[in-house]
């Protein structure tokens, strides 16, 4: 995968669990019989299929047959599965991971819906939830909750709204998708409630969740003596709140105190969303085939006819220390299938809910070539493994003629890619603690230094040179909103939808606040070599005085000897250790010693002529050993471009025709720039609803 192993003189040190390997990707394609001909002309592609014969829909042997097959058991997939099952279908979910929930499980569970949904109504009336668990008053005033489908639709398609990066995601939402999404929000909220999901008081609105009303609530459970989704309780151990440095196999990310938005002893995050849904799905008889990566769609003819099913490969995830096959938290409904390849027939429909492409550097390069650099993974790589967010739906969809939509929207949301303030871990988006079986894949929780932590070190690129004002590196632009910078509703910000003044250039100039440190971080440098010219990893370099100033705890589980943290008595030794110990450090940090010496000169002179650091924060010498390096990660978090679908979540081909029997939702689809969980749940709800109306064949 073009780590340093590809460069002469370097030993490959890849372990099994790394980012998607391009060679594996091609191999996988060959195994399915389509090679790399994803975008071949139809006749060429057909010829290739005929030559290999692997996907002859007439002669295929089906290993399993159900009404609805769903690829991916995350936010969109679990919702679709329960919905289809509720409507009477037999449902099989395949997921590449060992456990369910996808990235919903490690999320903050901020579910932004609206349109006059039941939780908005509940909070408007000042009522508690139906179990009476909520004892705090609503956080939002009734007028902030007075919502309608029409208002939500207007907000989702408001052409006039740009963000403080002067980007304009809302302008390009597909109208039909936005309408359908808005219309299904209230029903989806009720659906989630009916499947054991408990919502906190509404507070604000999720980024991309709409502009003019408060629509977002988190999901909670109550601390109790046992973990019981029906009762809505969880033990402190399972919630990861019993020990500040330990979590559980139930909760990859420790849950947060939610006492202010529910009641004392309430805890919230994605665990309180993913686990109740999974529990409900299993209770209702949805079946699951885990450790199985979906990688091809079987259609009657390669570019015509109905979709018949999928092909999926065994993708075992093994414990990083013991090598044992990882087991899901709950087992009921699991099908233990370990054959290399199985073909699964879908009598009614296939729903693609296998996530986006943020974990696939080759596909990312379609939108932002600088992020083909494989040193930078997507969020949740430890939890999800190498096949998480690997563009499987996009790639398989293209191979049966699907169109893509909204690709430009990938660059228009603040979390899509950013520099994390969590240093010293490869999986830098979240803090995971020991106790979850995948912790070993990251081996360190990381040190979250916050934006201000960037005042305490110099940031250098792969050759050891500074490249930007450190203080401005982690800054993210705000959310799309006018006026203001994305604060919650209730702050006197009067947004007028569809008003041209929202995007007049004077206002855009005033609110533009993006520093482009990320672009500098991904720039070529002296270590960039053909053919890829990778920018390489980034390092925070500091000394013992910085540790004293900040109180950073440079010990396990925050850092470890995993190639993302180094300590040495001299800067020269530090540079050597980084080069020897980090998997993506392909060249020596030749300039590091010189850079530190120059920096110390700048500190003594009180001015940094290269990046004007003195304007933003005090500067401190790097002179007291030991010296330290922590990795700085650029994260591509989520995907906004993907398969084109219509308002029923049916995948549409390049002629604008529906591909019969094929649905998609969540991050697998494009054309609907809406961040977060609300998008996936509603997509799943819509797809599950329509999939069971397909004729059975």
């Amino acid at each position: 995968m073009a780590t340093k192993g590809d460069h002469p003189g370097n030993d490959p040190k890849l372990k099994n669990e790394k980012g998607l390997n391009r060679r594996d990707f091609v191999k996988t394609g060959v195994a399915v019989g389509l090679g790399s001909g994803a975008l071949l002309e139809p006749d060429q592609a057909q010829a290739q299929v005929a030559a290999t014969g692997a996907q002859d829909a007439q002669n295929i042997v089906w290993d399993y047959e159900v009404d609805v097959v769903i690829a991916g058991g995350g936010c969109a997939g679990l919702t679709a599965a329960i919905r289809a099952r509720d409507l009477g279908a037999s449902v099989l979910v395949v997921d590449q991971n060992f456990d369910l929930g996808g990235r919903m499980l490690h999320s903050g569970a901020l579910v932004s819906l609206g349109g006059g949904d039941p939780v908005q109504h509940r909070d408007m009336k000042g009522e508690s939830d139906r179990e009476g668990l909520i004892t705090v008053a609503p956080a939002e005033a009734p007028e902030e909750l007075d919502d309608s489908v029409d208002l939500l639709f207007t907000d989702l398609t408001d052409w006039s709204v740009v963000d403080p990066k002067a980007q304009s995601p809302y302008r390009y939402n597909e109208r039909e998708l936005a309408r359908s999404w808005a219309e299904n929000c209230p029903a989806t909220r009720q659906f989630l409630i009916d499947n054991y999901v408990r919502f906190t008081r509404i507070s604000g609105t999720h980024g991309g969740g709409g502009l003019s009303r408060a629509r977002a609530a988190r999901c909670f459970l109550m601390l109790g003596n046992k973990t019981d989704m029906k009762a809505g309780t969880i033990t402190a151990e399972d919630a990861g709140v019993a020990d500040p440095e330990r979590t559980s196999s139930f909760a990859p990310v420790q849950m947060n105190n939610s006492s202010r938005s529910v009641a004392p002893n309430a805890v919230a995050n994605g665990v309180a969303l993913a686990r109740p849904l999974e529990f409900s799905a299993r209770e209702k008889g949805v079946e699951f085939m885990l450790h199985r990566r979906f990688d091809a769609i079987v259609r009657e003819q390669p570019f015509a006819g109905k979709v018949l099913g999928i092909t999926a490969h065994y993708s075992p995830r093994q414990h990083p220390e013991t090598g044992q096959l990882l087991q899901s938290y709950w087992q009921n409904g699991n099908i233990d299938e370990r054959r290399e390849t199985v073909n699964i027939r879908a009598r009614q429909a296939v729903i693609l809910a296998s996530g986006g492409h943020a974990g696939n550097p080759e596909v990312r390069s379609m939108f932002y070539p600088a992020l083909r650099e494989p040193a930078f993974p997507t969020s949740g790589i430890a939890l999800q493994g190498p096949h998480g967010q690997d563009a499987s739906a996009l790639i398989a969809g293209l191979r049966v003629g699907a169109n893509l939509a909204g690709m430009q929207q990938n660059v228009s949301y603040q979390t899509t890619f950013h520099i994390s303030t969590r240093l010293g871990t490869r999986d830098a988006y979240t803090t995971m603690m020991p106790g979850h079986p995948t912790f070993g894949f990251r081996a360190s929780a990381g040190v979250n230094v916050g934006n201000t932590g960037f005042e305490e070190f110099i940031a250098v690129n792969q050759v050891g040179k500074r490249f930007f004002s450190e203080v401005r590196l982690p800054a993210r632009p705000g959310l799309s909103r006018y006026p203001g910078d994305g604060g919650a509703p209730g702050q006197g910000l009067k947004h007028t939808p569809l008003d041209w003044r929202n995007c007049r250039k004077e206002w855009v100039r005033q609110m533009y606040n993006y520093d482009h440190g990320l672009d500098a971080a991904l720039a070529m440098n002296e270590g960039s070599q053909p053919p890829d010219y990778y920018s390489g990893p980034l390092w925070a370099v500091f000394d013992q005085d910085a540790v004293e100033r900040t109180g950073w705890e440079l010990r396990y589980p925050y850092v470890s000897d995993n190639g993302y943290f180094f300590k040495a008595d001299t800067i020269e030794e530090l540079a050597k250790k980084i080069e020897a110990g980090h998997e993506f450090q392909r060249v020596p940090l030749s300039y590091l010693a010189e850079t530190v010496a120059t920096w110390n000169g700048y500190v003594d002179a009180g001015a940094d002529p290269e990046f004007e650091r003195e304007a933003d924060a005090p500067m401190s010498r790097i002179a007291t050993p030991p010296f330290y390096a922590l990795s700085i990660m650029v994260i591509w978090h989520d995907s906004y471009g993907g398969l084109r679908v219509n308002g029923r979540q049916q995948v549409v081909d390049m002629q604008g025709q529906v591909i019969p029997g094929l649905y998609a939702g969540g991050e697998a689809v494009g054309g609907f720039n809406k961040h977060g969980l609300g998008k996936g749940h509603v997509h799943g709800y819509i797809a599950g609803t329509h999939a069971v109306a397909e004729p059975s064949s």
Partner: protein
Amino acid sequence: MLKLVVGVLGLTFVNAPISVAQQGIDPVLYEQGQQLYQENCALCHQDSGVGDPPRFPALSGNDQLGDPARIVRSIHSGRRRMPPFPRLTAEEISSLANYVRNAWANDFGGVSTGDVAAVLEGLGETGPMTSIWDGVYTEAQATVGQAVYSGACGICHGRRLNGAPEDPDMRSTPPLARARFLRVWDGRSLATLFEYTRATMPEDNPSSLTDQEYVDVIAHMLTVGGMPAGDDELQPDPRSLARVVIRPQP
């Protein structure tokens, strides 16, 4: 939101004291007043004097500035949500009064230091000044504050109070302890911190904690910042909080 407004309007509207000399106002006093204003007042009333009504009233175009005695009383003893500034001297208050009465579009004329001193005399003594390093809270109070903090503040400001949110979708927030916090708040009093926090936080539901909870959270901030605990609790009383100054470790 607040930061953005400060930045944007600060660039646009900060006015130089051009007309001051013509109005017969001491330019040295005015300039000193501008400096003091930025240190003590702009946090809420903004560089541009527009404030953030209703929680922070505008000073630009505010007719109540026509009464100098009212200005002196407000600054020295506080007024409603405005914290007292008991350590400001008659000369400092006078320079502040000269600034706010004549900055922006205001044109209320000068105020003499003698007049200010006369009003101050009638307001009485305020007690000795201390700092956050003098053991102004108790350990037990900080423990209570930690629980409040983790429910109301922690998800945005982070469990280490370093402004790193627990939810990675959230943007970084101002740190509430250690070097940056001390730099930003240096010279202000705990009363200013208390009133500002009470007026603006939690962001999604300002003023939703009790006064006691707000000071308990401040106690937690102090303990995380390394300031020693003492024998007496911090009281939710702006007059006593105003005598505790935030400053770097002596």
